[in-house]
């Protein structure tokens, strides 16, 4: 037996040694952190664009076009993993190691505050972008403390997809503008579940929760950036979803839905109404069961049209990169009218330039553009928080607990308010 305890002692000894070594090395100076020199976008030469999926392949096309014109300032696409979490993770690691591997970062709109406050991205010269031409809500997503850190590139907002054939058969002439109308409409339609959104415990739940709260006239975080979610309005918003699950207005399985699950349910004919991003338009028009039988409308709200939550991606320049002047030119190129138009046609991703929504040729190809523009003008951003990840986790926790009946809406909102109070610093 002696040898057994010796080996065990060996294990312990190792632990102790390592711990000791750690204690000894703790004197080394802590990470000072190189502060980014603001406004100095200098240097020309080859750069990279780091982003997740280039699903349409169009980004590569646009890079090729750029590279032909700028043979000495070529751009290389660095593809990050498919999942948004992992994209952020890779960008954060890049910043932690102060690596110059990524030059231009394709940032999700909710990451701006974190990347700006940590000085991982350089401020952009506002005067070099014609910001008035962009959708104001999209511009705001790239701003942190009045400075522009990310140029608006692609935007997104939720729409209400509805089955116009079912509504017509039931003698309903227009899509619902309020939740009450939505409920009455469903009362007249048999054979399909009424409504769904994205309610799995992930970022989509934060979006759907915020939309419900905003559409009832509440806020998650107010205009001054202070959390203010424990209000009667917010409660009415959350109650719409909670009661929806309780009464069967929303099918039970919607608690597992992310975007694609919801789309499949809609395309199988299981749903009358669905809250969904614009990407579904083209796809559902190829789905045999619902092809040509659906349309989109602005999201309904408590007392009138609701307020969708903004999505989208912006372009920023890594603080640790070289050749930032080239990067700035490249960002201007990607956000120019011609490039955005080409991108809309090729990828059907919503542009940030307002004028494109009014072009007749584009409206013909994408009939939902006017509805989307109206929604975007009315859209609300998610909380601008340096610790956005913690904020969204807190929102998901509370909303999920309320939807699954683990907490009352009052408890959930009170808990969320106090958590957000700790997470969001004035």
């Amino acid at each position: 037996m002696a040898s057994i305890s010796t080996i065990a002692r060996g294990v312990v000894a190792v632990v102790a040694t390592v711990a000791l070594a750690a204690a000894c090395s703790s004197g080394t100076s802590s990470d000072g952190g190189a502060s980014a020199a603001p406004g100095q976008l200098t240097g020309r030469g080859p750069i990279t664009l780091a982003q997740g999926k280039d699903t349409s392949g169009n980004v590569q096309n646009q890079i090729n076009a750029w590279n032909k014109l700028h043979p000495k300032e070529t751009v290389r696409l660095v593809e990050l993993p498919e999942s948004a979490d992992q994209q952020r993770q890779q960008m954060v690691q890049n910043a932690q190691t102060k690596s110059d591997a990524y030059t231009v970062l394709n940032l999700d709109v909710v990451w701006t505050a974190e990347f700006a406050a940590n000085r991982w991205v350089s401020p952009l010269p506002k005067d070099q972008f014609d910001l008035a031409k962009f959708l104001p809500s999209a511009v705001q997503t790239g701003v942190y403390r009045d400075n522009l850190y990310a140029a608006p590139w692609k935007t997104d907002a939720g729409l209400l997809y509805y089955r116009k054939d079912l509504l017509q058969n039931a003698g309903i002439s227009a899509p619902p503008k309020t939740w009450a109308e939505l409920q009455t409409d469903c009362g007249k339609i048999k054979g399909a579940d009424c409504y769904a959104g994205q309610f799995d415990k992930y970022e989509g739940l934060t979006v759907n929760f915020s939309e419900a709260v905003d559409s009832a006239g509440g806020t998650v975080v107010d205009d001054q950036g202070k959390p203010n979610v424990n209000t009667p309005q917010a409660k009415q918003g959350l109650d719409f979803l909670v009661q929806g699950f309780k009464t069967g207005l929303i099918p039970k399985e919607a608690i597992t839905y992310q975007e694609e699950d919801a789309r499949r349910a809609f395309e199988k004919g299981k749903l009358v109404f669905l809250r969904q991003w614009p990407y579904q338009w083209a796809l559902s028009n190829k789905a045999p069961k619902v092809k040509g039988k659906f349309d989109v409308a602005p999201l309904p709200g408590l007392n009138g049209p609701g307020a969708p939550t903004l999505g989208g991606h912006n372009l920023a320049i890594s603080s640790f990169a070289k050749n930032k002047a080239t990067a700035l030119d490249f960002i201007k190129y990607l956000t120019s009218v011609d490039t955005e138009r080409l991108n809309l046609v090729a990828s059907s991703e919503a542009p940030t330039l307002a004028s494109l929504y009014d072009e007749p040729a584009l409206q013909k190809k994408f009939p939902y553009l006017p509805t989307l523009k109206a929604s975007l003008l009315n859209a609300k951003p998610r909380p601008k928080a340096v610790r956005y990840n913690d904020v969204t986790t807190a929102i998901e926790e509370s909303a999920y607990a309320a939807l699954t009946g683990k907490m009352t809406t009052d408890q959930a909102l009170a808990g969320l308010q106090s958590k957000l109070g700790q997470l969001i610093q004035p």
Partner: protein
Amino acid sequence: MTAVLPSASRARPAPSARRMLPYAGMAVVVLYCLVPFYWMVVSAFRRPEDQFDNAALPSPWSIKNFTAVFKPDVGFQRALLNSLVVAGVTTVITLLVGTLTAYALARLDFRFKNAVLGLIIATSMFPGISLIIPLLKLFSDIKWINTYQAMIVPTLSFALPLAVWNLTAFFRQMPAELEQAAMVDGCTRGQAFRKIIVPLAAPGVFTTAIITFIAAWNEFIIALSMVNKKEMQTATVSISKFTGAYGFDQPFGTQMAAGVIVTVPLVIVVLIFQRRIVAGLTAGGVK
């Protein structure tokens, strides 16, 4: 020599049932392992638009998912090659280094032996994801980013402990007397080890090789973090970057097809190798 054994026999089940039993057991094992895999294969052969059918067979069959895996801009061939290099080199180094270490631990007597065993396994106790950032900093400093060694060396860190402990266990299972007899016959220690122990332990060494190779082949987070050039990425990293046709599309079918592509050749190679190597070595070792 003879084995000293009391030979008492007992009632046994009827011979036919006795003979059938292992085969029934085999069938159960095969079903257990292959039914979920079957689902993977079937999903891979569905058309992307029928991805979520629950039918037992795809209708119609489609190789769209497989062609998507090998689309030129994905660079999956290159990724497979990179995986092969990383996993292959890792396996060879692990076996060479691990065999020596395991031999020392199984056969030699020295101080701190248990501390060494403890140290080796202790390295397997730290959550791998916590090692990434320090390693990334280190490798950035020494300019190892986008190199094979940046993937191989960290992969060794989890392959080695498993290999060393495994091989030590296998070597210890060998009666030391075999070696001693060989050394009496004039073999050096090294010869005795190489000619007697390694061949006898061949199934163990081979299994260790398979396990090491698969562990390295499936490694993801290190390969993802240490490389940002497409030409250097491995198959698992490439799979994580698969995209559907549009923003929210989960490329499930393509990922399943890729899963089949990375798994099946591996299994076939193992099947071929085990016949050749194991049969050959064991035949040579034991008369």
